[in-house]
């Protein structure tokens, strides 16, 4: 059995930030990730981030990832790679499988779960054909592995992921035939949609994908218009010759470890579905377990990093590494930056949803008392 003070699960933007804060506070931290490289999905984010200078606005996600890794290295954080956390026991023990072959038990005084989210599916005829993939998969292929999954792409979903990945597919040298959105209005930021629109990519609002055609690979895609009650209007089908269909239909928090550990969840559709209840300190219904990033409600990398910091500060404080006054001061700084990121019409919805989680957590802790 390996002893550590704080175990952080997931080395994406939230987990890295959390581990950095824990180490800064002086805690012994072990950062565990199932991938061969740390960074999570951050190294796929090759666009410049929004926010202000304190959120590293204007810097590409991939550079922010490099900065975080450098900080983690300078703080001598113990990083375990190719390490899958398969279960959490007794609120403090992690079952870790190394390189798919070897079991390890890690005992920690506090655990921060930052496992991120998984892409939602959309089912349609032919959606299991090779060539139909998550938008995130296409993004992984082009930006991490530097391989184009196809030459001509149809994107399903106009949220930020859909439009950003469309833009990045164009940058990688592919063509994007169209972006299809079931809702009557586009989901992503206007600056993102404008970038792909001026590259000639058309948007089809109130449309959905009906079918992927092809034998062993996608050869074309059929889309159809939706009426006001979201039903397909027959006769409005359009066929696009494409070799790839990307699905960007939102994300769902990866809560299996938290739920398996016994953390109570609540259902918040705006943030992706079931999320572990947590308080202002990012602490779940189990006192030793914290969450941060997309698992705590799907937002974006900038907010994930701030939440990671919060979880790190409070986990370290829970182990006595900060005096309450210091903890409060550091936490207030992060909350201020989070408040800024959650402002405006896009942020407000997430802010309200976050409040629902905090209220749910408060209710259960009152019940306990």
């Amino acid at each position, binding site marked *: 059995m390996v002893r550590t003070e704080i175990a952080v699960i997931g080395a994406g933007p939230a987990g890295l930030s959390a581990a950095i804060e824990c180490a800064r506070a002086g805690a012994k931290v072990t950062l565990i990730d199932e991938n061969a490289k740390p960074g999570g999905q951050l190294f796929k984010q090759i*666009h*410049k*981030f*929004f*926010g*202000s*200078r304190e959120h590293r*606005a*204007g*810097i*590409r996600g991939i*550079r922010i990832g490099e900065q975080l890794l450098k900080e983690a290295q300078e703080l001598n954080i113990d990083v375990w790679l190719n390490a899958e956390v398969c279960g959490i026991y007794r609120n403090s023990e992690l079952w870790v499988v190394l390189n798919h072959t070897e079991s390890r038990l890690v005992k920690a005084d506090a655990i921060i779960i930052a496992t991120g989210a998984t892409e939602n599916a959309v089912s349609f005829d032919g959606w299991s054909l090779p060539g139909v993939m998550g938008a995130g998969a296409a993004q992984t292929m082009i930006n991490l592995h530097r391989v184009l999954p196809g030459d001509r792409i149809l994107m399903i979903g*106009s949220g930020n992921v859909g*439009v950003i990945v469309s833009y990045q597919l*164009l*940058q990688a*040298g592919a063509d994007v035939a*169209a*972006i299809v959105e079931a809702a*009557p*209005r*586009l989901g992503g*930021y*206007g*600056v*993102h*949609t*404008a*970038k*792909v*629109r*001026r*590259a*000639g*990519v*058309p*948007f*089809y*609002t*109130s*449309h959905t994908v009906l079918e992927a055609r092809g034998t062993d690979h996608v050869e074309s895609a059929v889309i159809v*218009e939706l009426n006001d009650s979201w039903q397909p209007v027959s006769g409005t089908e359009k066929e696009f010759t494409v070799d790839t269909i990307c699905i960007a239909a939102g994300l769902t928090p990866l809560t299996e470890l938290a739920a398996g550990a016994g953390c109570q969840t609540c259902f918040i559709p705006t943030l992706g579905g079931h999320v572990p209840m947590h308080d202002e300190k990012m602490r779940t219904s189990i006192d030793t377990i914290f969450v941060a990033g997309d698992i705590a409600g799907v937002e974006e990398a900038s907010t994930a990093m701030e939440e990671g910091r919060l979880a790190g500060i409070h986990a370290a404080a829970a182990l006595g590494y900060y005096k309450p006054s210091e903890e409060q001061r550091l936490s207030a700084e992060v909350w201020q930056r989070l408040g*800024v*990121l*959650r*402002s*405006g*019409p*896009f*942020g407000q919805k997430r802010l309200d949803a976050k409040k629902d989680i905090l209220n749910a957590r408060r209710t259960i802790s009152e019940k306990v008392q």
Partner: protein
Amino acid sequence: MKKCSNCACGVKIDGTPSMEELQSSPGYPSEARIRKGPVAIIECVEAIPCNPCEPACPQGAITVGSDITALPVLDEEKCTGCGVCVAACPGLAIYVKDFTFEEERATILFPFEYLPLPVKGQIVEMTDRFGRTVCEGEVLLVNTSKRNSNTALIKAAYDKKHFEEVVSMRRLARA
């Protein structure tokens, strides 16, 4: 694409802001200012938390304010059209256009993140907000300064008749 293709549906349907949305936003310069010479055209019409344009401007001509979700406000008298904001905008939503470049031609400085890059003197297809070719353009400058972290800045001259529509150039075919 639905209902109209040319149109004033706006950014949430067409994906690109309509002229109405642009002209009623505080970052879009007045007709009078445009006629005086190079000026920043800020095509940011949606309140998102973002403000790198503000500190980037050496003239202090762009204000977002403490609520960084506010739209950038252009002080068109202070703006010299220097173009620093063009590369600073993470959304690639700022251009500098010069109506006074020549008798017949205006110029645009725009961000471009595709390969291959054009070369100085090359004739390219200038495109509008919908990606349609509007007219030819002559590339005057290709700035690949490291400071802009791989966002190239391209300056091109094009027919003044299309002053407002042109925002970019068509991607060039890959070898």
